[in-house]
């Protein structure tokens, strides 16, 4: 087990740290689940080993004061607690990487991790009780490994939720864990755990095996019925009441509490909105980080740390006209207008030429700069003309600055 902790900290370090959203706890918990297939696999193998030792020692053939479940528990406690410690090491590594504020890890995810480890260990133990360790240990290792890692690549998308392997992809700041996915994993693992417990406690009599199978089917059915409606992701939109909104000048900015330097972000957003409005761009009165902005609000990115340029890019991408639905399966001539319009908005919002070129390219930036030399009224006409074209599938954009003068 100490070896396993070293393995997690060193070997899967990059996976634990690479995809975390800075300063956001759910993302920490999600990333910390990436080594779980390995941990559960090792626990299943060790469980099988312990089970085989008890069988070889003929422990259960002898009269004993303690019940079978008690004896099993005593043998498996080191395995399970070792697995759990390794999970906590994973949490520590990704928490350090994300630089989250001090807090208690999400106990729901820790519970799912614990249940998955317990289920793997007990299933391995039951296999180990039955067969020679030369067979049971490899079979448990392979079985647990495939069961814990394979569903994630399956085309039937909901299966992965049974073994909780979709939490790894969590989360951007506007997402939280889907409680349904958590319950689905809990139901499935609880079925396995209870089935194993009954079989161990009743010494694998026929009735016990029947009851165990019934529990297994019950748990799996509950897990499947919970997981069926889910897509591949185990997240939902974060409730809007966690947003922190303040009004500055005449724009309201709503940020998630995890955003670093919220004051600076608000000030930057307000000044960007001011310069865009003076250039003639209609900006709604509210900028929000909510996943589903209400009417009269526009989306303000999905970040926790951002510099002025990133805030500008977040505001502008929220203000770009939405691509119409018909463009998904049909011609969309206004596609070419997106980059020049964005570039013009960048320049209008006070970005330098180099910053704009970094977001688009040099030719687009040059075109946008030519537009910027026109009179304010003609710039506004250029913007209105091209965004109107972008909202339909038939409108043709007129990007040349000279167009529309005749």
């Amino acid at each position, binding site marked *: 087990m100490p070896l396993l902790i070293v393995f997690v900290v060193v070997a899967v370090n990059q996976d634990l740290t690479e995809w975390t959203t800075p300063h956001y706890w759910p993302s920490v918990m999600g990333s910390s689940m990436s080594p779980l297939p390995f941990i559960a*696999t090792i626990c299943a*193998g060790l469980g099988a080993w312990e089970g085989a030792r008890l069988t070889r020692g003929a422990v259960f053939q002898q009269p004993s004061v303690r019940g079978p479940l008690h004896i099993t528990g005593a043998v498996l406690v080191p395995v399970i607690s070792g697995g759990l410690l390794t999970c906590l090491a994973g949490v520590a590594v990704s928490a350090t990487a994300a630089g989250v504020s001090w807090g208690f890890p999400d106990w729901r995810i820790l519970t799912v991790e614990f249940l998955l480890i317990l289920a793997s260990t007990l299933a391995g133990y039951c296999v180990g009780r039955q067969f020679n360790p030369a067979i049971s240990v490899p079979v448990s290792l*392979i079985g647990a490994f495939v069961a814990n890692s394979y569903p994630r690549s399956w085309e039937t998308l909901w299966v992965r939720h049974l073994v909780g392997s979709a939490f790894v992809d969590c989360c951007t700041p506007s997402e939280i864990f889907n409680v349904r996915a958590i319950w689905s994993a809990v139901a499935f693992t609880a079925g396995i755990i209870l089935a194993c417990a009954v079989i161990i406690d009743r010494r694998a009599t026929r009735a016990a095996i029947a009851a165990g199978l019934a529990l297994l089917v019950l748990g799996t059915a509950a897990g499947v019925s919970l997981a069926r409606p889910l897509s591949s992701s185990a997240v939902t939109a974060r409730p809007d009441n966690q947003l922190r909104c303040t009004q500055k000048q005449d724009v309201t900015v709503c940020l998630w509490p995890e955003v670093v330097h919220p004051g600076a972000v608000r000030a930057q957003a307000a000044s960007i909105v001011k310069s865009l409005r003076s250039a003639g761009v209609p900006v709604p009165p509210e900028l929000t980080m909510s996943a589903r902005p209400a009417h009269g609000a526009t989306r303000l990115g999905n970040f926790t740390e951002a510099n002025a340029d990133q805030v500008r890019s977040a505001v502008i991408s929220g203000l770009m006209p939405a691509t119409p639905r018909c463009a998904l399966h049909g011609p969309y001539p206004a596609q070419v207008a997106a980059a020049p319009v964005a570039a013009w908005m960048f320049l209008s919002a006070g970005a330098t030429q180099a910053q704009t070129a970094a977001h688009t390219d040099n030719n687009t930036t040059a075109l946008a700069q030519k537009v910027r030399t026109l009179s304010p009224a003609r710039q506004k006409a250029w913007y209105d003309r091209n965004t109107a074209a972008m909202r339909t599938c038939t409108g043709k954009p007129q990007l040349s600055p000279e167009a529309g003068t005749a």
Partner: protein
Amino acid sequence: MIWWLKIRAAWVLVGTVLATVGLGLLMGTAKLPLPVLTGGSGSFLIGQLIPVLPAAIFLYGTGRTDGRLESIAAHPMRALDAGWALCIAIFIAGTAGCAYLLARQEIAIVIGRDGLGYIGMALFFAALFGPRAAAGLTTLVPIVLAAIGWQADGRPHPWAWPLLPGTSVLGLLAAMSVLTLGMCFTLVWRAPIQFRR
């Protein structure tokens, strides 16, 4: 000799080899998505994991004997075990070769090569730690390699031989050398007596 083969679970082993190759052809190319050491995640296949099964059954057969009794047997037991391992390895290679000729899938070569190498690993670990622990250790080899055996661009490291593609000559040579190494260890090394009972 019939008893000797019986206690080594010869028919179960033959069946396992056939089942492994068959299963590998059916679902061997299914990928297991895994966290890995380096950024580029490789594709670890089920076909690289299940060839452990023949090695496990081999260890089950050789391990259920009474080691103390066999150590004073009239027959050269260790030479026989090494020879038995070689027979099984040749049988795995032959089955996988036939499967490749019939199905023309690269995974058949991977299964044959990895099966060969895992038998070698099994012999090596059994000589050091006894057959029971060897089964688990042999299975850990592909699982650990699946986590640490990838380069940044998603290709396997040359030393991670079970992960190499079937066309790799290096992989085949590595598997054969592992088998040879395992047989040598079986011939010369004695596991401590407490592991052999």
